[in-house]
């Protein structure tokens, strides 16, 4: 019998402490233990990015990280983007406004990767956007509307700022 490990992960600003089997993946921890099902599992083979979350300021694939590896770290999921606020986050709003989604399966990952990009770069070019989302696959949109959404989000973030700035624990660092 493999020994369980005690872990504490800050998810969207709240500490989640529990015992897990070492082989539990972060994606499963978020969906099944914490109950946040906005993090999707698509390929389960590190290719599609549907499972993208932000861990200690970096966008990562949560299907390829063990929950025990995230011990002591700060994780933000799609639910964290507009947590505690009435309005959608500017990046989410841009995906709505510019039709950056169809079935929505890739969308939470796509939005978190976009958020990570926009926190690190201003005035993003199409080329930078396409490079940044190259680990996130979308089977519906053909990407053009996603690129438009991210450009729009870049503008919105410049104009309106980032509402998440209020939660220093999930602030993305450069």
């Amino acid at each position: 019998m493999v020994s369980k490990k005690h872990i504490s992960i800050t998810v969207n600003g709240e500490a989640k402490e529990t015992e897990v089997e070492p082989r539990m993946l972060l994606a499963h921890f978020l969906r099944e233990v914490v109950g946040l099902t906005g993090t999707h599992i698509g390929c389960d083979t590190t290719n599609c990015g549907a499972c993208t979350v932000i861990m200690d300021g970096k966008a990562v694939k949560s299907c390829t990280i063990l929950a025990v590896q995230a011990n002591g770290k700060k994780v933000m999921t799609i639910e964290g983007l507009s947590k505690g606020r009435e309005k959608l986050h500017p990046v989410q709003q841009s995906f709505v406004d510019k039709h950056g989604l169809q079935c929505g399966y890739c969308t939470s990952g796509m939005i978190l990767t976009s958020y990570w990009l926009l926190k690190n770069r201003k005035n993003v070019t199409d080329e930078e956007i396409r490079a940044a989302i190259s680990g996130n696959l979308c089977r519906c949109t053909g990407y053009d509307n996603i690129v438009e959404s991210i450009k729009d989000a870049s503008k919105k973030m410049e104009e309106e700022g980032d509402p998440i700035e209020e939660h220093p624990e999930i602030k993305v660092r450069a």
Partner: protein
Amino acid sequence: MNPPAFEYFAPTGIDEVIDILAKYPGEAKILAGGQSLIPLLKARISSIPYLVSLSEVKGLSYVDEGKEGVRIGAMTVDSDIENSELIRKKFPVLHDATEQLADPLVRNVGTIGGNLSHADPANDLPAVMIALDARISVQGRNGLREIKARDFFLDTFTTALEAEEVLTEVTIPFWGKRSGGAYVKFKKNTWNFSVAAVAVQLELEGNKCTRANIATTSVSAKSGRMESAEKILAGKELTHEVISKAASEVAASAQPTSDPYGTEDYKREILKRITREAIRKALSRAGEN
């Protein structure tokens, strides 16, 4: 799919890591970023009873400029190397490679130590470190030793690391003032490994090339130097003819195999093309200095 069950250790010191590796010979493995290891476990290609994570060992993530070169800690993630101004300026060949390695999300987790220790002939950093004449520091029960990158890669998935040794640091020595490098990678899409890739590092004096290192990715059982091609460049002015001759020599001396990435002939053709491009790019960068 979940990986098969394993015991997990996350000690805070290297000595403890080594002790655990030594306690379970052949059954314990280091976990760095997990971007190679976790997919292998999930696909049930590997089963490892004891995983020893380096995630809690402090001080293994850095890119530091020293007197003789740049030192990079084993747990430094690819994206931190990609974003390092120092690396971009001093070793553009490494910047090129990290910028094209896997995808941005994998680069946020995968480490230089893991990329080198894994020794997949399709991993990008072995060829770069060989081309740069880097040295790899490893720590084991008998203390610390340094291995030249060119002697580190023994075969597919096999390095000079002993079972209870940990790769701790990579040192890239500074090259002469008029030096430069380039990494050119040919791949069909982001998430696949390359069909072929080549790392070139050159040093110039007057209009002659005084030092030339060439190493390849994905076209042999292990990443290695292309010495016969290097000899074609050394001591010469790098004219169009000389560059083409060296590129043809790289294509001829590589040992690609036919697989879903392409036939052997196709890979040699690609290799010739990208080697020409890499030498030209390295030359122009060296010339700018």
